[in-house]
């Protein structure tokens, strides 16, 4: 029974992706207030900042935080350099709000899998961040993908870059 409730809740929260998710999450969030509380507790304001320590407020992020510290990018990129959109401020904060809310909610309910998996839209944000910094270096190898209207996936090969598992 408990599993069933967990599963249904899981389905429900899966609906929170993309723009629709942002709106939905915000609405329901206000009604429930639960996630907001956690966000506050975890440091609501700092969630919108750039300090990786903020992310590590939640022990759910320990693994990534610790690995990031040992990884190749610790000196050059913080969490948000890879996980927040670089192109426009509105999008950046909308994305953060949605993520912040989702994570808080799930953290509170402990409704997240043992190995957290990046969601598709967040993966795209991250892949774009790679190109933001390494654009010139990878110009040539992206040629064919560009012509096909595809985005070359960097993490297909460089999956350990931010924080080796």
């Amino acid at each position, binding site marked *: 029974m408990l599993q069933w409730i967990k599963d249904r809740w899981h389905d429900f929260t899966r609906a929170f992706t993309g723009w629709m998710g942002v709106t939905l999450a915000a609405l329901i969030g206000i009604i429930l207030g639960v996630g907001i509380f956690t966000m506050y507790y975890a440091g609501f304001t700092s969630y919108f900042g750039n300090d990786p320590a903020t992310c590590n407020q939640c022990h759910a992020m320990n693994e990534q935080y610790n690995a990031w510290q040992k990884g190749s990018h610790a000196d050059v990129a913080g969490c948000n350099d890879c996980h927040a959109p*670089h*192109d*426009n401020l509105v999008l950046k904060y909308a994305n953060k709000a949605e993520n912040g809310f989702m994570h808080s909610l799930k953290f509170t309910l402990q409704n997240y899998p043992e190995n957290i998996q990046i969601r598709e839209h967040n993966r795209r944000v991250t892949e*774009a961040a790679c*190109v*933001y910094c390494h*654009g*010139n*270096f*990878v*110009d*040539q*190898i*992206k*040629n*064919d*993908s*560009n*012509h*096909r209207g*595809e*985005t*070359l996936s960097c993490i*297909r*090969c*460089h*999956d*350990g870059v931010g924080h*080796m598992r």
Partner: protein
Amino acid sequence: TIFTHRQESTQPFTQVVEITDTTYDPAVWGQNFPLQYEGFRATSEFDVAEMVPNDPPNTADDQRGEYLTLSKLAIEPRLVSIWKGYAFSVEYREPRGHEWMLIDQQWTHRQTNFNQVGACLNCHASLPEIMDSLGNGDQAAGWAAMNKLPYGEAVQHASGPIACIDCHEPGTMKLRITRPAFVEGIKAVKASEGIADYDVNRDATNQEMRAYVCAQCHVEYYFKGDEKTLTFPWTEGLTANDAIAFYDNVGFSDFKHATTEVSVIKAQHPDFETWSQGIHASNGVTCADCHMSYMREGAAKISDHQVASPMRSEATINQSCLTCHHSSAAEMQQRVDTIHQRWEDAKNVSFTAVQALIDDLTAAVQSGTATPEQLAQAGDFQRKAQFIVDYSVSENSRGFHAPAYSISILNQATDYARSGQLVLRGVDVDNARGPETYDIQPVEPPAR
């Protein structure tokens, strides 16, 4: 947004010369892309330790240079047995780099001492120029003409081995398919998967193209009908058994075995088909990922155009395997060695059985002791068993591209070969029955 703009910058290259549909010469492309060109030419390099002297070199009869690759017929003499009556029993060697493809084909005894056709050129020369030249601009007509011409005539239209234009679209540098045989072949595969009207140059993803460009040549093939149209046997699917089913359906055989008189099929380099059955393929890891891995050249990252074994040095293992496998070069070499060894052992089990069947059938034909039904059945087992063993040996990775699959087909070959022997002794043989076809009850327990 900024990202999409960056991703869409479609002209990342410095254009020194203009490349058109008739820029056949790779050296001209090389002016725009010197790094890729350098790697491309380096496919002429080889390890002398893996070669034998061509003694005397460069005679009028043999222009293959100072060295030849090792003879696979000497390494695995049972290949001679299964190919008795066919050109392959005369000469068959290890391959070497792409720069050698035209020369090696022109001077092999399989070519010089037999009547071959222009279709051979599909995979050993730069094709666009030949098609344009023979078709006067109509590539389809040029291709049809080339396929059925005698080799000696067709080769006059070839100016060299594979070139940039064979894999890239001039101008955009997009990958593209230039071989009609692959266009048709992959269309059949997709159709069998329920995808209608597949146009590879229109529908393939970048990831797919990174395997498909190779799959124009590194595949099993036959020359169809009097037109000698190069064809890939893929309508049933991509496994070895699918290929056998295909040839049985269309009633094709390559030759009649000299001593067993069985009509048999020759398998050639099914690298692509085998790869497609492995775990790398199902994870989207392509030929280019391993054989043309990215390398850093100054401020840019490019694809290593020295197409060769990724295991040839610690540096290349690092550059290909270690990107995905967080391990060491030594450990990766170890894994590959284990896979090779296991495959080698399995091959020996199967090939011993195939050789035994051929010996038995040869004796039965000579002595005239077997019934026609027995000869037909045993012959069919020979056809299947030797095709599979041939398939596995002709595949170039010695089991690596799909370890469990490669051994599973060898297991079938063993069963077929031994079954053929049994049939000659009048045994009714069943193969590969499922448990549900048996009716055997558990034994009653003894009283306590």
